[in-house]
């Protein structure tokens, strides 16, 4: 029988956050494909949100967005706002479903990434930092979404392998949910 270990789960979350931050700083500036770039902070926040309670999801979105804004030459505050809203909504609609790698979670995360990137491009257009709405949405926004979805796969798989084992005492979801793995 596997025992739920909150300390281990917290450690794994910290490790994942550190990996995402390093990737964002070291890898994202080096890679550009079809006008898009990886945004590992978007990936981190949106892959964590379905597995978290609403408060944690909101904080993850806010701080991920803030980290991105402070390490890139972009307006500060825009990405935290979008990721806060996206993580809030994602956590709400995935309430009780849990995280991990599945077709449903991929669909939800993919749609959320697309919407965040399109909204970001649109906001930059409104702020006058992008002169072409077409390029902002259909080139940069779409290409970045595709790259983010690709990057989300390992994050979700990693999340599903390290997801804390839920039992009747699982407070995060507020549900009386028990996973099969805990019954082994």
């Amino acid at each position: 029988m596997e025992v739920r270990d909150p300390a281990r789960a917290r450690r794994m979350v910290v490790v994942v956050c550190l990996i995402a931050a390093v990737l964002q700083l070291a890898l994202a500036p080096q890679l550009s494909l079809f006008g898009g770039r990886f945004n590992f902070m978007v990936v981190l926040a949106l892959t964590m949100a379905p597995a978290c309670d609403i408060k944690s999801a909101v904080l993850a979105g806010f701080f991920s967005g803030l980290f991105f804004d402070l390490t890139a030459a972009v307006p500060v505050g825009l990405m935290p706002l979008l990721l806060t809203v996206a993580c809030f909504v994602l956590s709400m609609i995935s309430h009780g479903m849990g995280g991990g790698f599945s077709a449903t979670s991929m669909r939800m995360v993919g749609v959320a990434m697309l919407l965040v990137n399109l909204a970001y491009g649109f906001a930059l257009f409104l702020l006058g930092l992008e002169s072409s709405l077409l390029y902002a949405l259909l080139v940069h926004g779409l290409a970045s979404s595709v790259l983010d979805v690709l990057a989300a796969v390992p994050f979700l798989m990693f999340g599903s392998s390290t997801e804390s084992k839920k039992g009747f005492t699982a407070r995060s979801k507020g549900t009386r949910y028990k996973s099969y793995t805990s019954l082994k």
Partner: protein
Amino acid sequence: MRPFIICCMISLLLLTFYIREGETGPIHGVRSVVTTITTPVRMVGSIVASPFHAVGNVISNVTAPQETLSELRQRNEQLTAEVAKLTEAEKTAERLEGLLGLRSTYSLESTAARIVGGSSDAWSHTVMIDKGTVDGLEVGMAVCNSGGAIGQIVEVSATSSTVRLLTDETSGISAMVQRSRAQGILQGQPDGSLQLNYITADSDVSVGDIVITSGLGGVFPKGLPLGTVTSVNRASNATYYTVTVRAQSLAENNEEVLVITSVSAEQAASSEDVASANAQSAGVAPAPAADSAGKND
């Protein structure tokens, strides 16, 4: 629900303050500190990624018959820069009746730096260099490489700076056609190309002309190569040409660049150039007088 509302409020306040504050506001200050702290990680990423860039070049060059395409591109870049430099030197010498002679056209006061990374987002064309305020760099300074001007510093921290490239669509630099001295503003486009705007219809511009800095903004020295004219179009009854320019040089990762720390009086635009620009733009266009690589900042 409360954390959600609080985070949204903080985000909106941050965005508002960021837009309203100047280049030295508290949010820029925080970003500068974060950039300084995270620069080593970026440098490691740049070093690790450099062999992969080389692999990418090898793959793209595999169809070259004898010499690799990268070597040819580099050679072409050097030759075009050399032609621009020599032509500019010749014209200057002619105009000033041989006063300057064979004196080097670009005696720049500059600091060498290295590009350590590209933009972190898909919407802007910027690069990060490994020098900052500790080395005397400031926002607004011009940056060039062996091929010519590449951009202008828009953010600076203690140990690194962000350079907005000419191809960024918020970038604008005073430029002129070397052959005819027609002046305009070279602006980045959403697709990463360059467009020379405000060239009046009576100007003499043709495909193949070399575009150089005019020195009018006081940021870039006069005569630095910017690119080559690839197309010249004018709609019927239009006041200006639509001139597309191919950038002279690309900012490659790990490449050495020069940050121009000051422009001497000789390197700035002459009174003749200013008068020419005024005459060209009188009554029909905004005077092409300011280099600005970051209208948002």
